[in-house]
């Protein structure tokens, strides 16, 4: 039966069809990740790297107080960004699904939110500089309004700028999955809750939020992993004052300390996978994808 419903009836067909994707994924993701794990056991002297089996890199990473502060800083960035993107993403999706009734408008406004995804992140980050800088638009506005006597320095090249950029870049990774789950909510359910006497906030808390859980979970996975994997935004927008796990790793890579960087990477991947599996434990995403 299942054979009948697919493109061809030969039992080898799916293997032939999936082979190109599988080959690329194994060669460009599977083996490279294994290479990183392998490298984390090698030795290096800053000039080249040598095959070995040493746990020194892990010992160094795990005992260094810098590691802990890097991870805490990165998790802090991720947590604040997650809260902001979830609030914005949920509110915008809620507006699109429950308040924009014309389907054409709904799709149009949704696409308006997603278009920046297909443009350059670097340019979108750079475009905050003329807005936030010392002589930027926002400081000019503040001074002109008499709200501050001198331009604020904390706007650009600070943690504030880093998080603002993250929220700017990554909110659409929250909007798309949240919108997707919200759009699948049967309007009759909301109607039934209203008829049964539920107040608007009760409908929100007991009907809409539970039914949007999978979307929020998917968005959380995207936002957290994107923030934790970033090195460029934190480097440029903090003006080199802050560092995250990956930006520290990038420095080690630049100094050719590949094994140390790899050990740090393995640690990071383990933390990320742990967080992802924690989210998956709470919410069953595969049932959502199958729907």
């Amino acid at each position: 039966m299942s054979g009948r419903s697919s493109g061809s009836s030969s039992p080898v067909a799916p293997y032939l069809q999936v082979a190109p994707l599988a080959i690329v994924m194994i060669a460009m993701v599977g083996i490279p990740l294994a290479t990183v794990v392998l490298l984390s056991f090698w030795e290096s002297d800053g000039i080249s790297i040598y095959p070995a089996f040493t746990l020194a890199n892990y010992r160094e990473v795990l005992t260094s107080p810098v590691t802990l502060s890097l991870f805490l800083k990165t998790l802090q960035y991720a947590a604040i960004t997650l809260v902001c993107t979830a609030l914005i993403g949920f509110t915008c999706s809620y507006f699109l699904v429950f308040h924009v009734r014309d389907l054409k408008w709904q799709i149009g406004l949704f696409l308006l939110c997603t278009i920046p995804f297909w443009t350059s992140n670097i340019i979108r980050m750079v475009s905050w500089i003329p807005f936030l800088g010392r002589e930027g638009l926002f400081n000019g506005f503040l001074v002109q309004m008499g709200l501050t006597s001198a331009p604020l320095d904390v706007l650009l090249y600070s943690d504030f700028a880093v998080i603002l950029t993250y929220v700017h870049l990554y909110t659409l990774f929250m909007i798309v999955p949240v919108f997707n789950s919200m759009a699948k909510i049967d309007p009759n359910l909301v109607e039934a809750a209203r008829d049964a006497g539920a107040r608007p906030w009760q409908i929100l808390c007991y009907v809409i939020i539970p039914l949007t859980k999978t979307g929020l979970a998917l968005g959380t996975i995207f936002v957290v992993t994107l923030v934790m994997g970033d090195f460029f935004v934190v480097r440029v927008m903090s003006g080199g004052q802050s560092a995250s796990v990956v930006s520290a790793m990038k420095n080690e890579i630049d100094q050719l300390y590949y094994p140390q960087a790899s050990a740090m990477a393995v640690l990071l991947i383990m933390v990320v996978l742990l967080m992802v599996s924690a989210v998956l434990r709470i919410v069953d995403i595969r049932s959502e994808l199958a729907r």
Partner: protein
Amino acid sequence: MAHASTRRGPAFYFLAAFFALFVAFLYGPMLIIFLLSFQGTSGGLTFPMRGVSTHWFVDLWSSSRYGDLGGAFSRSVILGVLSMLITAACCLFAGLAFRRKFWGAGPLFYLSIVSLVVPGILLGLGISQFFQLLGFQLHWWLSALGAHLSWTLPFGLLIMFAVLNRFDSSWEEAARDAGARPAQILAYITVPILFPGLIAVALFGFTLSYDEYPRSLLTVGGLNTLPIEISNMTTNVTTPALYAIGTVTSAISFLVIAIAFIAIAIIQKNRARARGEKA
């Protein structure tokens, strides 16, 4: 249907204002740099505008200060087109394959998800070191292309799943019952029906590759792609030329997005008309 919300209460206006603010937040900064890229010759990185000119655009192509921008641009476009074609083809067939159970389907799916979740620079490190271990040279058209595919293929696959969810395979069965060979079913039934979805996959394939930075950084070898050149410019260039290159590359992205959207819209319109004529 939802008659209780036919009246627009204060909640609507509050949420609409919030949404409008978000859109301004999303596009405002970009508009600022588009404006500033037309800064006059003596103008700086911020307002006020000192005249209006296309000086900085001309500067980009005529000055040698910015490195090999032309070469980087053509490499990025070629990589984008290659990624687009490979992503569309691989994801079409992989999507079709995933409709059936096959050995290794689960691990392959998870490997794709891992590729989305892993920091890009790390995958770049892995790919570059894997190449060195094998004694291969890093080339933008080989290692960087592979790195880009590790980013575009999982996205394409997820979109293909969504597209195939709405695909009725009884069309294929009907064609088979009528005696069509697998290649004919693919060419005359499956691909034409799925074509709008394939355009979406292709759009992701091109744009994600064209703007890719962290995965490219360690895998391009000796010749840079455009995002790497631009990222170098963010630290070296202190003139509006930086905004000019931003305007140029964003304009190209918007052009590609527009072409994809218009193509999909035309197909859907033709289909709606064909359905209308039949009815």
